[in-house]
């Protein structure tokens, strides 16, 4: 039987009423006391997110999820299509389960998809993703003097982010997918 030390982002936990995928987890020690594991878990049935806190070391009913490297292909209606990089099989994942991560997907991006009973249940995307800038308004003299040190740019997958004024169309930039913010020009890393 699994314990709280097996809890990771993307694993699936069986609760009395439903299966839940772990969205976030954190160790907490109330008042310098012994450790607990606080989780935010999303129902695979309703998509509802709840918080559950376990005593660290407690047994948790974690169901076996098969994690596969996949490549994002395209969006089809409410679903996102991915290709398994081992066997080239294609799967579709519901937009509700993909959630906010969907906005970072771009054709060819490699992600990890958790599969449970042949059904995709979780997605993990890289912490930083590189995009090409397709629209960047030119910097205007005096912008930085007014304290206006960023501008909105549009990336090749349609994502809008705030970026420094020196960014031009055609630049490659890295976006932090944990915050949704511009991180750096790709060449700086």
């Amino acid at each position, binding site marked *: 039987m699994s314990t709280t030390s097996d809890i990771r982002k993307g694993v699936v936990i069986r609760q009395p009423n439903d299966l839940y995928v772990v969205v976030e987890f954190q160790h907490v020690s109330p008042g*310098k*006391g012994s450790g607990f594991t606080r989780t935010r878990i999303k129902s695979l049935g309703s998509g509802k997110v709840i918080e559950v*806190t376990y*005593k660290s070391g407690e047994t948790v009913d974690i169901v076996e999820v098969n994690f596969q490297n996949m490549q994002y292909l395209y969006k089809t209606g409410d679903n996102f299509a991915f290709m398994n990089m081992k066997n080239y099989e294609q799967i579709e994942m519901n937009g509700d389960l993909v959630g906010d991560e969907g906005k970072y997907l771009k054709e060819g991006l490699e992600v990890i998809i958790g599969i449970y009973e042949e059904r995709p249940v979780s997605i993990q995307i890289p912490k930083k993703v590189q995009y090409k800038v397709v629209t960047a308004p030119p910097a205007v003299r005096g912008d930085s003097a007014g304290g206006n040190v960023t501008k909105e740019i549009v990336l090749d997958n349609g994502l809008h982010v705030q970026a420094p004024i020196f960014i031009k169309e055609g630049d490659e930039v890295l976006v932090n997918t944990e915050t949704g*913010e*511009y991180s*750096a020009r790709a060449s700086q890393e």
Partner: protein
Amino acid sequence: MSTWLELKNNPRLKKIYETRLLITRLTREFFWSLGFSEAETPLAVGYPGQEPYLNPVPVVFEEPNKTKHNFYLHTSPEFSLKKLLAAGFSKVFEITKTFRNNEDLRGLHSPEFTMIEWYRAPGSLEGIMSDAENLFKSIARKLNQNFVEYNNKKISISREWEKKTMREIWQEYLQVNLDDYLEVEPLQELAVKLGLALGGEQKNKAKYEDLFFKIFLNKIEPHLGLEQPIFIYDYPSRFCSLSRLSRPDSRYAERFELYIGGLEIANAFGELTAADEQNRRLEKDKALRASLGKPTWPVDPDFIAALKSGIPEAGGIALGVDRMVLLFTGAKDINEVIFNSVYDQIN
């Protein structure tokens, strides 16, 4: 996340860091204006605290002749500051780095973090509560910001803060009288009823503290301080190895925690100043450390000697500075408020 490159490129993170520097300045000014002495105490100590579940980071000093001395980075400046009380300081504070091993590197935790502790001797828990409330309100006024934001909720700082006993909040959220659940058997029954019994091996040897906090963390804590900050006080006495027992009811101890938006921000004690009783409790914690298979060291003899020499009745508190900054800036992760944190240096 708060690296030089991010600060250079990301105006939001730069603003957070500037606000952090301002908040620590305002904090110092607040305590100086109340006549507190700002202390500086060692980060490396020979005899750290005995908290059974904290893990001090070992450091080794070596002399030119190769003699080695085993020290630890402190998990809190508590012993040192109480020694200053014994030396005759009546109001002291310190903003210091503290270190704890086996902690998460992100979210609300960092193994290296900043704490402010302050002590009043003579002093009471009520006095410390007022200090904490006035500190936040003074910072909020200077930042021109009447609220803080956490988990997409706005929490008023300027409104009057709430104060409730642990017994009152158990009544409020669980409709039970905590007096009836001060022993492990009834608490176990309550946990089962709430669907919160510990699973697996821990089921039949559940400790009181584990059951208590499993119920508290699942059913109560997420609701605390969502409209305005709240002090929860009078903890069951078995949790409190450094605090006085409550005078009207010795089943409870003089301790409070401050919650803002469901987040634990500070922990305070009506300080236990009786040397023998303190020594006995620290030895008990040390024995628990040993039984958990953790490294042990002697109870700091100099701390016990300081208590023996006499300290007035004191109140004291430890407040997480990084979490305070996180609340005021709306940062998403503790690593956004710490420059070049352990997490950032690893990743």
